[in-house]
């Protein structure tokens, strides 16, 4: 107790953050877990119903099993690891340029991520419009690749690809910058030493020197990639302009939560899906820590 008192100033310093953290992150997560075991329609008080929400989710919720899970999986795989590898490659290519040019290319790659959110939809919608005025349609028609306009954002076969494309376009954000900074920070003497030890190509250099020395930044970047991947589910509904998306083609876990929470007012069940999503994110992060985590200080 005495030590706690002697650090009273430290606690005072951290208090504002910790209070906000408790109110808007910790308590909501705990509440979500508690609510996930109840039936709660926002009018009557929550009623405890045990595991039945989870049972329903795992066995009977056809939209969840048939659309939300496979779509999320597809979207997350393409945007998560796909975007991650892309951002590493881009960061590496840029780091090979001389300094004065580097900044401009980094800026060009990073800028799209500034539009993330609602602005992104407005940028892309006219490009993907379904009639021949749409820029993509008009371009492809001119080249003769397609012979009639394609409904990019409202057709169920293309919506998912549009979502992935648009999200990838805007995904070179904080994670990309972290990787670029990590690459630029690798001690150049290591490369010299590597050459003396017989490293022959740039690929070997990346594998044996670059990646091991920037693991911490890669982990940070991976965590950021996971977060953006799982929360950017709304893009489908913004692009197609309807909710749920046409024939559930762009239905991901986040949309499923909104469906039950905002439309059907089954807050208990929506919380169950939230908990499921949090668990998925948690294990995705565990996996990336396994891959990139360094043991102790290197």
């Amino acid at each position, binding site marked *: 107790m005495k*030590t706690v008192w002697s650090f009273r100033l430290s606690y005072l310093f951290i208090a504002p953050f910790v209070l906000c953290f408790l109110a808007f992150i910790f308590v*909501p997560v705990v509440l979500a877990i508690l609510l996930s075991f109840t039936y709660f329609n926002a009018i009557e008080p929550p009623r405890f119903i045990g595991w039945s929400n989870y049972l329903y989710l795992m066995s009977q919720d056809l939209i969840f099993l048939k659309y939300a899970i496979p779509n999320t999986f597809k979207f997350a795989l393409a945007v998560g690891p796909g975007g991650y590898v892309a951002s590493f490659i881009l960061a590496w290519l840029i780091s090979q340029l001389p300094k004065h040019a580097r900044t401009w290319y980094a800026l060009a790659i990073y800028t799209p991520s500034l539009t993330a959110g609602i602005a992104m939809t407005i940028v892309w919608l006219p490009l993907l*419009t379904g009639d021949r005025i749409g820029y993509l349609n008009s371009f492809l028609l001119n080249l003769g690749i397609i012979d009639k306009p394609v409904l990019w954002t409202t057709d169920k076969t293309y919506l998912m690809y549009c979502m992935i494309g648009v999200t990838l376009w805007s995904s070179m954000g904080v994670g990309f910058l972290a990787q670029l900074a990590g690459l630029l920070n690798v001690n150049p003497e290591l490369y010299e030493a590597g050459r003396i030890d017989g490293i022959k190509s740039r690929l070997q250099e990346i594998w044996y020197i670059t990646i091991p020395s920037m693991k911490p930044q890669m982990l940070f*970047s991976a965590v950021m990639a996971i977060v953006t991947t799982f929360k950017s589910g709304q893009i489908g509904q913004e692009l197609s302009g309807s909710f749920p998306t046409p024939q559930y083609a762009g239905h991901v876990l986040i949309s499923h939560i909104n469906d039950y*929470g905002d439309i059907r007012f089954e807050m208990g069940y929506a919380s169950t899906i939230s908990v499921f999503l949090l668990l998925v994110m948690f294990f995705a992060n565990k996996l990336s820590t396994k891959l990139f985590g360094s043991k102790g200080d290197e």
Partner: protein
Amino acid sequence: MAAIANRIKSFRFGRSRLNRVDNFQKFLYVLLTLLGAFMILPLIYIFNHALKPYSELFLYPPRIFVQDPTLQNFVELFTVTSTSVIPVTRYLFNSIVVTVLSVILVVIISALCAYPLSKHKFPGHKILFSTIILTLMFAPETVGIPRYLVASHLGIMNNYLGHLLPHLAAPVSVFLMKQFVDQVPNELLEAAKMDGAREFQIFMKVVIPMIMPAVATVAILTFQGVWGNTETSTLFMQDEAMKTFPFFLSTLTNGLANSVARQGAAAAATVIMFLPNFLIFLFFQSRVIATMAHSGIK
């Protein structure tokens, strides 16, 4: 002569593949220029779109560049909406107030928390830090319903606090700041203490000046997050007059998927959303990269 000697040397040591920089870099320039152009193209297009008169917006075949630029769309954005209940300037005002206050408060609160977390070994600092690492992957979108419940119990609905407080819980900011405070040598803090400085003075006079790059970065990232955020408007604000500009933007685009109405105004609004983000990043980008070098998670 020297060049030839170098050539022979590099040949002898088998380094020729690593030193073939010139061709490789030329190739890189071409590749990255193409990629950068592709990334930037949609943004160039939205700027042009915002300046197009009606006669050009739906021209066939569509053109990216504007022929006859006008500010008509911006005028429309501000005049057409002034006849509705809430003029667009009100949304813009809300956004500016919320964003400026959030940026200032997040910087102060995160720095206040980061300093003891890094330099004071108070009981519980390990738990706090690992919780922050764990919540780096937290996406508020997943637990919207419990957050709504918390906000309604705190009585911050329809209130600027409802916009502010949720943003103050920013684990990424605390994390980045903490990584930077770690670089501040302990000896410096000890010396300041010897000279009779109080903790708060040390914090203001020693720590803050040394972590300025992190402060700039956190400010930029917060600005980007809050400026484009629609979550607090949809969840915590029922009063239309309290909602923010990005929310207004999302109402403009509702059903925009295949419609023609207000495309020009939406493009103009997007430009207003995007420009501040871009300019601020442009000014501070070197500091951001410097901070990101310390972003690694070990």
